[in-house]
């Protein structure tokens, strides 16, 4: 995939438009203020749905992390094996008599933890590489973009698969594998607007005033791609939750005593015809998390760039 192609992979709609706004078209975004951003996030339906779902997921993950679950997550109760959902077991129990609701909370925590670390890796490396590639140009850019093209050519999930087998199972290795696979997307999404910003009036003014390159890059350009990065971060979280679940579904997630959503789905495949809730419980958790982060990303995009909302 060459970036020189006539119509490359579409950058998120917010990207180039935001830079126009900053270039001084009298857009209210000139004086954004956190409050208006949050308000417009809450005022569009995507954003609100995203906030609510992500809020639920984070609450569940925190509950899983500190252990405030209805039952100890791994506690087995031989007298309550494969019970259907009821008031004592909200999502039913599995073949060992573990309470699925408690188990899902714990698994969500692992899943969110892996996703956050993965996105932190991809976001930091990808954003810095994207800014550098967009600003410096010439051979630095062509080296970075060439490497990005190569990484991009390996389907991300396959790459994660290779890395996680190479490093062995474990939550940190999963995070590393997923994060590395997502770097190229951040590079591409950030580089586009930076290319446009390089020639923006205030950046050229800064150059003339003799500001150091680092100052220009991180004090002047970075804040202006922050919105793009925020949108992409949310979408990346959705993808990471999905990728983590896929890896553990294939048996390459964190090893057994650790609860993981994908592994719960794969375990359920032999049980689900008689005990549907063993499939439904982890699936609903995955779907809420993935849809939530996606809606939040769409909502952020709409909030940052009102023109994209029309579509």
């Amino acid at each position: 995939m060459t970036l020189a192609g006539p119509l490359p992979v579409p950058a998120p709609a917010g990207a180039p438009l935001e830079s126009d706004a900053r270039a001084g078209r009298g857009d209210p975004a000139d004086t954004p203020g956190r409050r208006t951003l949050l308000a417009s996030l809450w005022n569009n339906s995507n954003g609100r749905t995203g906030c609510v779902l992500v809020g639920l997921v984070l609450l569940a993950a925190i509950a899983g992390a500190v252990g405030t679950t209805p039952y100890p997550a791994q506690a087995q109760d031989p007298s309550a094996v494969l019970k259907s959902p009821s008031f004592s077991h909200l999502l039913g129990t599995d073949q060992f008599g573990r309470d699925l609701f408690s188990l899902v909370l714990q698994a969500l925590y692992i899943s969110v933890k892996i996703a956050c670390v993965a996105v932190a890796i991809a976001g930091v490396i990808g954003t810095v590489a994207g800014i550098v590639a967009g600003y410096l140009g010439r051979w630095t850019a062509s080296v970075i973009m060439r490497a990005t093209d190569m990484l991009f050519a390996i389907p991300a999930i396959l790459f994660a698969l290779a890395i996680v087998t190479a490093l062995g199972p474990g939550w940190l290795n999963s995070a590393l594998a997923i994060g590395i696979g997502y770097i190229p997307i951040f590079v591409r999404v950030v580089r586009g607007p930076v290319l446009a910003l390089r020639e923006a009036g205030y950046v050229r003014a800064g150059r003339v005033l003799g500001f150091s390159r680092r100052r220009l890059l991180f004090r002047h350009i970075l804040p202006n791609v922050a919105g793009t990065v925020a949108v992409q971060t949310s979408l990346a979280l959705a993808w990471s939750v999905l990728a983590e679940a896929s890896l553990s579904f294939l048996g390459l997630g964190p090893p057994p005593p650790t609860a993981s959503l994908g592994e719960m789905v794969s375990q359920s495949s032999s049980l689900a015809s008689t005990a549907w809730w063993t499939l439904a419980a982890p699936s609903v958790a995955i779907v809420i998390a993935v849809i939530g982060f996606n809606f939040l990303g769409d909502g952020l995009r709409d909030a940052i760039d009102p023109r994209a909302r029309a579509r």
Partner: protein
Amino acid sequence: MLTGVARRLLSMLVTLFGVAVIIFVVLRLLPGNAVTAQLGVSAGLLSHAQVVALDHYYGVGEPFFQQFGSWLGAIFTGNLGVSLTSRTSVASLVGAALPITLELAIASMIIGELIGVLFGVFGSLKPGRLVDDLGRGVSVVGLGVPSFIIGTGLVTFLASEFHYFPSSEGFASITQDPWLNVQQIFFPALTLGLGIGAAMMRTTRAAMLEVIGLNYARTARGKGLSKRVVTWKHLFLGALVPVTTMSGIQLGYLLGGTVIVEQIFVLPGLGRLLITSINERDFPVVQTVTLIFAAGFIIVNMLTDVLYTVIDPRTRAS
């Protein structure tokens, strides 16, 4: 035009070479090798001389660059190297698996495009009506529910309602038993196709809504052309560029998706070959299969770029 194509091909080869290097380096991080994978714990009981002899036999003790060189050599001679565990050429393993994955990919793409384009086009003609709502419902499911959940659900449903188990019979190729083959491919293709259809539907619908109010569309209607001609020859053709972009992207994702779906539906395709070889530390197979997936992805992207110039004459100038 010709030099453009030549440059594209050259840049594709450079990218592929880089991909080969990346894959090779990543796989060398693997703890253990084919010897330890085959012998398991008892590998620890081997004497030093035995370890050296086995490493030599499998070719895993050679220096890094030598291994890489012999792999590249094997790719250019066409036998793609020799599998460490089955001792057959990688080319023959891939030759057996590739058609299955290709068939799955094509079937999924057809299902996905049908769902996406039909719901997208008819939904955009009557926004907010039943077809539109139905289409958007399908797209929420397809985008939000990962393929391994849909797949697992589908397998469970088929097993409990129809007593159909994908693993009960060996895989039949389309030439051996076409009817059985269609049954075996349909459900995995549907699983993947739902996800593709969801993305295609969103793109098609948005692209149609962009052109539906344009002057040329009004002119076409004003000339008294039939509704079908306006919809397909004028509107859909105008919306085709984003639809093509999305098709390319989806085809790329599809290559990764086949790995999971082949696992669920026990199809002996490339994805399943990849997972088994990863577990057996069979480097030559893992390298080559990953490289094939990457090559597929690059070729798809190149074809999409070429398609633009066919669809939209405006892009030819640049």
